[in-house]
């Protein structure tokens, strides 16, 4: 299944998605023995009512609405949070910075991250979190069943394109690829770079994190909206001219190589 998944990504780099509707939510009839005990929705900025200040991160990525369902299934209790974003890209971005050290990732043909108490999913316009209270293997397995059902009922109509540099190279997406587009995304997903991009309002950052022989390297495509933002970034990251591009100063622990990729866009390699 994993092979299938990534051959799909390698060919078309298409993560299918669709605009959601209520018909794409879990309901009592969908699985034998499943019961929706409670459902609450949050629309627009009313997300403040659910997670208060935590909502600003979701607004940064284009939050649309959230359905929170309390679900009983297979003798376990689950909280299913279905964050609907205005774009696939926003949903993937939120997913990418919310997932961390997954016990199991990208299994059963899903972009997913499984930990004992939580299964996280990227599905189309949705970032979905399924939380259980027991942390048992039974709860984990039931979470996967719920996730598979969600995958079935969220149709595939719209795609998200990954940048070219990620094409064909991915062992997996979860944990390796992050998409960041704002200050809070940086603070949550790549805090090391917060100071480098401080004060720059509009940027897009695709970053691939790879580890080989315990050594981490990073490859990134960074796009700015403003003409001067690149200069600000170079200065704040203490990068100096080198050939046609830039590099880190001598003596710094990280070795940066930065080359211009397009107007207001750079390719970054950090070793």
């Amino acid at each position, binding site marked *: 299944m994993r092979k299938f998944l990534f051959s799909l990504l390698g060919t078309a*780099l298409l993560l299918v998605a669709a605009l959601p509707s209520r018909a794409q939510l879990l309901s009592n009839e969908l699985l034998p023995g499943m019961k929706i005990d409670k459902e609450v929705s949050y629309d*627009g900025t009313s997300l403040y009512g659910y*997670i208060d*200040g*935590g909502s600003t991160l979701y607004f940064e990525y284009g939050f649309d609405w959230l359905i929170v369902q309390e679900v009983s299934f297979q003798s376990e209790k689950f909280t299913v949070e279905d964050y609907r974003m205005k774009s696939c890209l926003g949903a993937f971005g939120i997913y990418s910075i919310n997932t961390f050290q997954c016990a199991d990732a990208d299994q059963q043909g899903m972009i997913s991250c499984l930990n004992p108490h939580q299964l996280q999913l990227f599905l189309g316009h949705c970032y979905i979190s399924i939380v259980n209270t027991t942390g048992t293997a039974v709860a984990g397995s039931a979470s996967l069943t719920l996730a598979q059902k969600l995958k079935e009922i969220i149709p595939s109509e719209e795609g998200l394109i990954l940048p070219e540099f990620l*094409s064909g190279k991915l062992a997996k997406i979860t944990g390796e690829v992050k998409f960041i587009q704002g200050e809070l995304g940086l603070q949550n997903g790549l805090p090391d770079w917060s100071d480098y991009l401080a004060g*720059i309002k509009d940027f897009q950052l695709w970053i691939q994190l790879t580890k080989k022989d315990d050594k981490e390297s990073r490859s990134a495509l960074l796009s700015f909206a403003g003409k001067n933002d690149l200069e600000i970034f170079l200065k704040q990251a203490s990068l100096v001219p080198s050939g046609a591009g830039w590099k880190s100063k001598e003596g710094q622990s990280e070795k940066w190589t930065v080359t211009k990729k397009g*107007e207001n866009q750079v390719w970054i390699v950090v070793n």
Partner: protein
Amino acid sequence: MSEKNKNQSSGRRNFFRLLTAGGAGMILSPALGSGTASASEAPPTEKPATNIQEALKHPRTASSMPGHFPGRVRQVTHSGCIKDNVIQQVVVDKMLTALMLDLTGEKSVKRAWRKFVSPHDVIGLKVNPVAGKLLTTSHELVKAVIAQLEEAGIHRKNIVIWDRREMELQETGFLPENYPGIKITGTEQKDAKGSFFDSNGKLYGESMIDKEWSYWADVEGKYDAYTLPYMVNEGKDSYFSNICTKQVTKIINLPILKNAGSSVTLCMKNLAFGAITNTGRLHEKLWHDTVAEVCAFPPLRDKVVLNIVDGLIGCYNGGPAANPQFICQYNLLLGGSDAVAVDRIGLNIVSAKRIEMKLQKEENASASLFLKRAEELGLGIGDNSRIDLKTINLS
């Protein structure tokens, strides 16, 4: 379910677009460098003005922050405070006792608590249930505090458990049956039918605010009908809850050891954003200032006498919400009268955990801006070198 925003534009982000067909693997940015001005091209953004000077006009009192023990922080750890994911009440009782005795230098629990409160006080316990059942101020800590307050001669009718949202208190188990004889209340309220509005169409929250006390900031709060009940009012004023201006005479602050991005949401954040309305407008440009400045207003500055951070279970990322993969057992309590010093030590702990987990390599320079602002306002000591920290390991 409202879907009114479903097709709304995603705002200024729209000028960034990815290819969805043809040319896969490239980023198409049709309007890059044109249209919307970026931050660097726009005039420098000045920090919005606030009415902090109004707060500073009020004379300090004997109990004003940082209270009896400026710069003093006690950290109590016990590896057995959680067994099989269940917090052990008996152990928490011991941890709290150790913290109170060492913090105050007293020999008895009664005398230790009497340093901060008296039987004449109405004492508000400011808890933090915003992240839900997974990461609320633990009932074990709250019950330990109540038991020791009773031991110090405080009657249960003089204890109030409060937070901004009454419904979150209820959802996380702060219910009359669990706390008999103790008032449990929040600024934002729903009735039994789930409505935020009374029969006259007035928000219940409106009757819970005190318009005599306002944190004004030159940022307009504007909300849709779904959001307003959570904010209570729009405009440039954030009114203080009458729970802290009128209902209680002393506040014991019980936040959780949580991150907020690469910073933290601990004592001052729990107080500031928990005590006022119309907070949605304050996150973007004034987060650090709000955290410090709201605490400089007398309803908080002069009433918050003690801070005990619940670090039994906390988180190091994903906060202030609860993301299970980042929830961890710190197995500790932090305490002090100086909220700024306690926050500084809490930030050290959370930053160290984030570094250990390879989320960052060092403490983010901007993470402590609120501490610096609080120091400027005379609320406490945020400099590690001036903090008297003692760690007590019980096992």
